[in-house]
């Protein structure tokens, strides 16, 4: 399935785009399809893991009064929030650049995240709801049933630790660990955000009960404090060792992470709907990433910039098994349907993961809002460092809440606990 021919585009002129390595094939494909546009493609770390590279870059461009790229792709879903505000003041109003017929094809929740001060300042390249990734081959081999609730998941972890030590059912060392476990369980770590107000309450039951649930698994090694992108992780659990039994994680893990990063063989993985907390209904889940496209308000060529963003989010869809494939669930509905159809037929998966991904997209808990400060490094350097040193998550929660509050205050927020 190659990308459908772009509707006759009139875009031309110079265009500078900043993308991460994953979006590079996209930018290159646009260039190939649009020879009239003279593109400068710059790859960078994508601001992933809560990096603040883009903040410093934009400050420098603002100081210099020149140098801004026309379009930026960020791996950090909250980046547009600060980009649309002082002192950065970088993001252009996309609502006036891209037709409403197009933008209305994104889910309302996605558009809500991209709306700052009443303006649409970004479009999500992909939606990133968390699902439960399952190694179907190993589960069948061990004779386990796939858990439906977090409690079942924990019970299975206890069983795995004694019956098959070394295998894992999750991990707790990613920078977005809090987004994996606490967002979905409605823990108010970034809630009631309005203007510069935010609620942070790490002592809320929704937070402490999840910490209590995770502690035995961190201790018995079935949810180790290692990041999935760390070389140690791939070595211990990936490839030939093949020790990932279950993994709560975002939609874009898919073939990109399991096949590409961890080298788990084809015919093993699939996805199932996000875990439920006990009997709580409806099920809610977290979101990790869902990288947005942002157009610069300083751009001298907004027409080409808008054309590029529209093409990237609505047309670009290479063969799902090729190395250039889109890793994540597209936000634009018609493309999403096309992409899911490709995923359903992808021989990498043991069973069709597309229904789980589609369902999860509508389950993201709306009580967790995006803030201007990076909260993910706070998790990494207050919680993960402690877990590595053998402390319990429960004992680290007060320090985590305090450090989040400090980060919020440093960014100019007033912090409430309820």
């Amino acid at each position, binding site marked *: 399935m190659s990308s459908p021919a772009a509707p006759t585009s009139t875009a031309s002129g110079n265009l500078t785009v900043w993308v991460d390595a994953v979006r590079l094939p996209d930018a290159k494909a646009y260039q190939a399809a649009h020879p009239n546009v003279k593109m400068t493609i710059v790859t960078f*770390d994508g601001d*992933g*893991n*809560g*990096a*603040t590279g883009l*903040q*410093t870059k934009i*400050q*420098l461009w603002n100081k210099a009064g020149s140098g801004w790229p026309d379009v930026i792709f960020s791996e950090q879903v909250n980046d547009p929030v600060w980009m649309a505000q002082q*002192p*950065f003041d970088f993001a252009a109003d996309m609502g006036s650049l891209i037709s409403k017929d197009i933008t209305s094809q994104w889910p309302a929740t996605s558009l809500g995240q991209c709306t700052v001060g009443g303006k649409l300042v970004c479009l999500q390249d992909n939606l990133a709801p968390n699902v439960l990734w399952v190694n179907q081959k190993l589960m069948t081999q061990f004779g386990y049933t796939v858990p439906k609730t977090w409690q079942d998941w924990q019970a299975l972890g206890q069983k795995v630790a004694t019956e098959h030590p070394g295998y894992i059912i999750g991990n707790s*060392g990613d*920078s977005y660990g809090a987004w994996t476990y606490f967002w979905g369980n409605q823990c108010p770590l970034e809630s009631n955000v309005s203007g510069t107000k935010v609620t942070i309450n790490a002592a809320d039951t929704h937070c402490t009960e999840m910490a209590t649930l995770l502690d035995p698994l961190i201790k018995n090694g079935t949810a180790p*404090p*290692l*990041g999935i*992108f*760390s*070389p*140690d992780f791939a*070595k211990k659990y990936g490839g030939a060792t093949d020790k990932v039994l279950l993994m709560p994680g975002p939609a874009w893990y898919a073939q990109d992470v399991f096949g590409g990063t961890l080298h788990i063989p084809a015919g093993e993985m699939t996805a199932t709907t996000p875990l439920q907390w006990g009997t709580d209904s409806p099920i809610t889940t977290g979101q990790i990433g869902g990288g947005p496209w942002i157009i610069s308000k300083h751009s001298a060529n907004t027409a080409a910039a808008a054309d590029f963003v529209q093409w990237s989010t609505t047309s670009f869809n290479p063969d799902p098994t090729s190395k250039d494939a889109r890793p994540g669930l597209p936000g634009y509905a018609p493309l999403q349907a096309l992409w899911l159809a490709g995923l359903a037929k992808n021989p990498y998966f043991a069973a069709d993961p597309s229904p789980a991904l589609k369902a999860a997209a509508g389950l993201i808990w709306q009580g967790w809002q995006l803030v201007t400060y990076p909260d*993910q*490094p706070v998790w*990494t*350097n207050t919680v*993960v*460092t402690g877990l*590595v*040193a053998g402390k319990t998550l429960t004992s680290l929660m007060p320090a985590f809440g305090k450090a989040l509050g*400090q980060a919020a205050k*440093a*960014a100019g927020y007033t912090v409430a606990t309820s």
Partner: protein
Amino acid sequence: MQATRKRGLHAGGAQRKRDQGAAWRGLPFVLPYLPFLILFGILPAIYALSLAFTTSKGKFIGLKNFTKTANDYRFGPAFEHVFLYTSVWLISLIVFVVGLALMLHSRASKATSTFRFLYYIPGALAGAASVLVWLFMLDPAVSPARFLLEHVFGSTLFVQAIAPGHLPFIFAMIAFWTGAGGWIVVLYGALNTIPPDLEEAARIDGAGAWTIALRLKLPMIRKWIAYMGILSFATGTQLFVEPQLVNQASLGFVPDTWSANQLAYQLAFRYGKFNEAAAVSVDLLLIGLIAAVLIVTRTGLFRKED
């Protein structure tokens, strides 16, 4: 030496006049450096000073930027890290560099030049590149020093190797290996300026290798050691590249405001608070100046008589 000091005292006036003449004659030698010093050293420092005492709109607000940054929750830990790191690094630098230089010098043979070269090699790696090499050294999965990491430090994973408590020592180790070689060469050169007859006289008087090294050579290279101390103290307190790279390589495991200089950088370019960032830089400048004044007055770095 006693005699020269006395002569210096008697001929003080004449000496000063000769010094002034020498200063003018020295000018052409420093001239090529002056524009750069002014452009990249003095002007930025003045700019930082003016920023540090004003608001972003240029209004004078006294010490407000200083008190505000000092109360920042990251200020204390950042300076604590930097001081621990600087002390570990300076002490090891002085002890090992002086020790190795003295040892090299007392064994003047063909092997000396080989060792001098070997000591210098790690220093040939520029700052950022050496950190990348060290990232491999510190990762037990790929490190050639895996045995040490596992059995001495008990780290089987990269995240354990770079645990917060290890960091000041790790950064000190990186800085030591990249900087020590150059200083060994400098001190070796300094040792070479000691007249050989002094050493011979000492040997005739019955001094052994130890006595010569500690009682004769060490006092004579005191100024070079002081010079090394001043420069290294300033570099040490301004630590930036190492923690910044480890922050990125560890995916945020190490905070991006680990050192004081990083805090200044983040304040300026992440929060847009250039005036507060300037206040942190002025703090660093002051600390460097105080240390330099202390070292200069205590060791008589600029005293000419001896």
